């Protein structure tokens, strides 16, 4: 039995983690059609200029206060065929995608590793913060996903990135110490809006344990290559604590003397420490963010880990 394509197994789990009222909100918001949201590429333009150019071609927008986002309210023709899109003046994305790279806050001389880089929207946000300087090592395991990664980075005018086709668990073998790591880990994707999620089936629940193991291995390998005082942002577009809060809880336990959690620098979502788990969660998890699906946002989890 399901409520409009959301299997009851998920609903019961979410109720136990987040309570009945929050779960009803999750279900409602997962079912909503997502409007097209565009975000300016600060390497190429700014909001007033972008809006002026697109409005002169008949497009209309509603501003979102967070992250300079614009909801496209009227499209006289497909916005991806405009010179503005093709020249990389903006990207189309859920606002939740912005939070992990913007939380990392690299500087213009940082060395940054993006361990699961395709399709490159988060990588381009890192490049924007770095003013296209420093070095981003963008790693993508799937060779099939490399062309889209390359095309997006080139279109967005990213000039500071080296793309490697490599399994990120082999990252330590490269023997490169980096200042920052973005690990938007492969996950069950249960936080994605239903319009773009073909995976929300009961069998996905069986994958959570396997995916959590994979995520654990990726964080461990990434951690080895992080410089002291460096930061790692971990995120997943999952509503399952095993892929979020519990993952970080376990990591803190294993590395208690070498890691400190930093607060997510955005007033959005709720604290990961509010999630109900079988045992009380580490108090440091108050600094993590559990974002529930809403307009412009998929459900996801994110944490910033700093190496002592």
């Amino acid at each position, binding site marked *: 039995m399901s409520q409009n394509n959301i299997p009851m197994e998920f609903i019961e789990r979410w109720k136990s983690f987040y309570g009945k009222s929050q779960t009803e909100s999750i279900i409602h918001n997962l079912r909503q059609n997502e409007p097209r949201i565009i975000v300016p590429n600060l390497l190429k333009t700014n909001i007033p200029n972008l809006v002026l*150019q697109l409005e002169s071609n008949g497009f209309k927008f509603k501003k979102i206060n967070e992250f300079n986002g614009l909801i496209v309210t009227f499209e006289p023709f497909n916005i*991806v*065929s405009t*010179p*503005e899109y*093709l*020249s*990389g*003046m903006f990207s189309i994305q859920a606002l939740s995608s912005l939070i992990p790279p913007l939380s990392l806050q690299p500087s213009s001389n940082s060395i940054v590793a993006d361990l699961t880089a395709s399709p490159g929207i988060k990588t381009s946000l890192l490049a924007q913060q770095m003013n296209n300087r420093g*070095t981003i090592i963008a790693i*993508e395991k799937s060779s099939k996903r*490399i*062309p*889209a*990664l*390359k*095309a997006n*980075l*080139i*279109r967005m*005018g990213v*000039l*500071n*990135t*080296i*793309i*490697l*086709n*490599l*399994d990120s668990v*082999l990252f330590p*073998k*490269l*023997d*490169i110490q980096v200042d920052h790591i973005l690990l938007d880990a492969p996950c069950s994707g249960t936080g994605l809006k239903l319009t773009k999620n073909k995976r929300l089936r009961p069998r996905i629940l069986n994958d959570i344990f396997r995916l959590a193991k994979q995520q654990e291995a990726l964080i461990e390998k990434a951690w080895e290559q992080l410089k002291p005082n460096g930061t790692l942002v971990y995120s997943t577009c999952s509503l399952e604590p095993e892929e979020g809060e519990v993952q970080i809880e376990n990591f803190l336990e294993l590395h208690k003397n070498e890691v400190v959690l930093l607060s997510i620098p955005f007033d959005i979502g709720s604290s990961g420490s509010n999630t109900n788990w079988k045992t009380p969660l580490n108090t440091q998890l108050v600094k993590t963010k559990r974002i529930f699906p809403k307009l412009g946002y998929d459900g996801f989890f994110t944490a910033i880990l700093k190496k002592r």
Partner: protein
Amino acid sequence: MKLFKQLTKDETNQVETTINQILDSDAMTIILKRKMLIKIKGDRNDVYLVLKEDISLFERLSSKLPEKSFSIEHARIKLGFFIHEKFLIGIESLTLLSPLTRKRISLDTKNTQKFIYGKDIVINTISLQKQIEHLEENTTIMVFSDNNIPLGYAKIFSKEKNAWLQNLVDIGIFLRSEKSAF
């Protein structure tokens, strides 16, 4: 072939000359004093502009992992590629080179749309003629929209009284061939 190799002196000269001609300046010569050109493993002999310190990074990568387990797919700025020992400019160079060029033409909205759909542009207005009247046939120029968006590269051709811009490459490629062109 190794994972990457530096361009030969002749190849470097060809890239430098081609780009300087497109820009109508010696900007590429100046850039190459601080950076260098490499090819990375690939079918099309792609040419990348990298920092000198990147070379030691690539050499380390080559020595740390077996070649089968990874590949360098892109390095900072792709400028173009060699085909039959001739360097051709690539769309990837547009971000770097568009602020530096002096040889340029601006298109109105209608011609902008035509150009980014991969079409050639007929020089049939006084405005277009004036913009290229000082340039010789076969010159490669950078093409912009009338609100200064770089659109791609074109070559000037003429036959009898007709002149046109032959589309060499344009930003519409991101829509037309995202999966095959990159």
